[in-house]
Structures are given as C-alpha cells and as structure tokens.
C-alpha cells in the first residue's frame, strides 16, 4: 500500500497562530483535500450502503463544541460556533448528577 502523501508548508517567520487559528487552518485544509479528492477514502462505499438501506444522506461542514468536567462530558454540533455553543449550553444546563430528584 502506498504511503499517503503529505505536504508541509512553512508559516511565515515569526507567525504564531492562536489555537483557534490553527484549528481553522487545519479544518480548512482538510476540507479542501476532501473536496478536491472526492473519491479518496471509503466514504463513497459507506454512503452507497446507507443509501441502499433507504437513508437520504447529506454531509455538511460544521463546528463541534465540547465541554469536560471530571468524568462528565458534553458535545454539540452546529453550523456556526455560536450554534454549537448554544447547543452545548443547553446540554450542560440539563446535566444532573446521579441522585438528583430521587
């Protein structure tokens, strides 16, 4: 099996991207690779099987917001960061420890 090709592009000297800039850059590049190589990976076969089972499919880019506290964790998805965090807030507001409201 051929090794996957990866491309390294140095950032301008002195550039110090913030964590969110790095996140955005990586997401953007991953999206570009996926869109420019639509036949790469196994997704088409997975999609074909799901379609054969009657599922109507749609795949979109979005944000994933996560919250962790001890062993609790919540994850929400949104089309925008606002939307993802709004959903995350609702999930954490609903969070209840064991024993509550017995």
């Amino acid at each position, binding site marked *: 099996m051929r090794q996957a090709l990866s491309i390294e592009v140095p950032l301008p000297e002195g550039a110090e991207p913030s964590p969110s800039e790095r996140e955005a850059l990586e997401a953007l590049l991953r999206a570009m690779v996926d869109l420019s190589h639509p036949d790469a990976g196994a997704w088409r076969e997975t999609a074909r099987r799901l379609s054969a089972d009657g599922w109507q499919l749609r795949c979109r880019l979005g944000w994933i917001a996560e919250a962790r506290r001890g*062993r609790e964790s919540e994850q929400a998805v949104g089309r925008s960061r606002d939307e993802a965090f709004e*959903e995350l807030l*609702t*999930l954490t*507001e*609903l*969070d*209840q*420890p*064991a*024993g*509550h*409201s*017995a």
Partner: protein
Amino acid sequence: MTFRDAARQRYRDELQALGRDGLLKQERVIRSPQGAEIEVEFPEGAPARRVINLCSNNYLGLSSHPDVVAAAARALESRGYGLSSVRFICGTQDLHHALERQLTRFLGTEDTLLFPSCMDANAGVFEALMGEADVLVADRLVHASIVDGMRLCKAQQDTYKHSDMAHLEEKLQLHQDKRARLVITDGVFSMDGDLARLDRIVELAERYDALVFVDDSHATGFIGRTGRGTHEHCGVLGRVDLITTTLGKALGGASGGCVSGRRELVETCRQRARPYLFSNSVPPMIVGAALEVLRLIESTTARRDRLEENTRYWRRLLAEAGFDVKPGESPIVPVMLYDARLAQQMARDLYDEGIYVVGFFFPVVPKGQARIRTQLSASHERRQLDAAIEAFVKVGRKHGVLGKSRQELLALVGP
C-alpha cells in the same frame, strides 16, 4: 473471561474517589414493611432499631395497606406471577386495560399507557412523539429521567430558568419557527418541594401553540382537592396534553408508571415508545394492587386530607422551633442547613435519636444549598411528628442552628 487487574483497579479507584468526596451511597437495610415507623439495620449487621421514617415517598401510607396487599395477593393467585412477554406480543391481561382505564378516569385525560416505571415512561415518550423539526423546552430542574428521555430524542432541546415564566415565554417566542413545541416540567419538584406554575404554563402554551408535558410523580394521589395532581391544584384539568406519573410513590409504592393524555399521543407511544415495546409487562400483582389503591383514593379524600394536615403541622413545628424551612405546600419539606458537613452530621445525629432522614448536598443540590429533606406521609401520627420535632430541636440545639439565617448558618461552620 477474566476481569483484568487494570480494569478492576480503575473501578476501585473511582469508588474510592466517590468515598473521598462523600458521594458514596450506602443502603440501609430495612427489616419491616414500609411505613411511618420502620426497623432499620444500620450499619449492616448492627441490631435493627425502630425509627420514625421521614424520607420515603409513601405519601398516602398505602405501601403496606392491608387491602392493597390483599389485592396484590388476589391478582397473584388469579393471574400469576409474571407474563414472560412484552405487552404487544402476549403480555396484556384484562387487568392492564382495567388499570389504564381507571388511571385515565382518575387523571382526567383521554387515554393511558402503562410502563414498567415512570423512568421508562420518561425515557420513551419524547423520542416517540417529537422529531428533529420540533423543540423540547424544559424547566432546568426537571427530574433526571426526563433529561435522559430528552437526550434520546432527536428534537432540538432548550431550557428555561426554573419556574421563570417570562423566560419560558421568551423561549416559546424564539421557537415559533419549529413544527411543534413541547413544554416540559415536573408537577412538584422533588428537591425543593415547590409546585410548577401550571396555570401560567398552560396559558403560555395555548398562546404560543405548544404542548404541555408534566411529570406528576410527586403529586399524583394527593395534590389537588381530590388528589388528581398538579393540574387539578392549578385548575387546568383536561388542558395538560401529557402526564407521566408513577405507581412507585403515593400509589402503592411498588413500581410501574404511565403516560396519560391526549388519545393520539398515547396511542403513538403505544406504537413507538421503546421502553414499552421492549420491556416486560407490569406484573399482575402490581396492577391488581394499583387498582385497589385507586379504589381507596377515589372512595375518600381522608388520606390526602390527613397528609395535608400533617404537612401543615410539620411545617409549623419546624418554623416555630426556628429551623429554616423552604416555603411550600407539598409534603416535601426541606430543612435548609446550607453546609454539606452540617447536613450530614445532623442526619446522623437524628438517626441516633430514632429519626430516619437523609442529608442532601452538592452535587445532588446546588453548592451552598445543603439540606435535610423531610417527607410527610398520611400514616404519620401526631405523636410521631411530635417525637420527631423533639429530636430535631435536640439535634438543632446541639449544632446551634435554631433561629439562624443562611448567613449565620454558614458563618457557624466556617469556610
């Protein structure tokens, strides 16, 4: 297959951490039927002692009522022990339909479907009825089983601040673009004992075209003039779309629950609710006993009236003694202590004085809201409540909490 040492150690560590944080739940073994007084063996192996029970959900005192026990025995004899089936395959007896009809009549709804528990009813109802085009809008203090049910549902989820009607209205306005809106609340909130403002909730739901869901587990059988629940108390009988409730508290206290409400909604649950479809029928003896419970409740309001009197009496005794009591009307009467250690220590001392109560503290209630939750029963006699207040005063004096405000109580224990 062996239980690997690493896995065993992981769970041991987690349990030890719970112990360190004071969150380990310990079962106290009861050697008598449930009642106003019970025989408790605690710690396990210690001689059993008789204590006054102020922490059960046996609101109407029917858990060990002879007529209820006899009805359970009759059903056991005539219909057997179990059904070995889910309801829709070969697990529905005439008794199940009879109980569903009786509950429908009692709750003033159109139809009812039994579930193995109210936890199961809440786990199944939202996913069965609401889809991704819809929204669930829940009070932030709803029962954990509702939260779990909401998480299983594909509908959008939102919350409103506890009993804040302006906030609920805001949320209902916000979600006018959704196909359907479902407002979700407990009837009586189990930690504070306060009642949902159902009259206002129903009014808002009607104005903004929303459905209303109420979990009335801590209300069915005794809240309202004839004990029908929070909807009766708030004057909205017939205007609540969905009620879930339990047979495991006032209605005999064994197990079982139901969804009751609009005919089409209940029938949809019958077709789609997974805990109904994939778990066994409620056992005949519980169904038979629940029918007897409903007969007893409907024949007289004496028990719910006595519970109301006991609640008023107990609240007055606590207030006069100088305890900080959460105001309210329900038989859930929290004695506020605010500090976790104080709540734990007082509960232990009260047990030594023959009073069985439990301290609740973070994370079960918010930080700084530690309390001892007392719960009244119709089966409590005056002498028992008088004995209980004597013990509360003795222990309260010992800890110097009588007549103290929240600030003074917190200052008492220090940081």
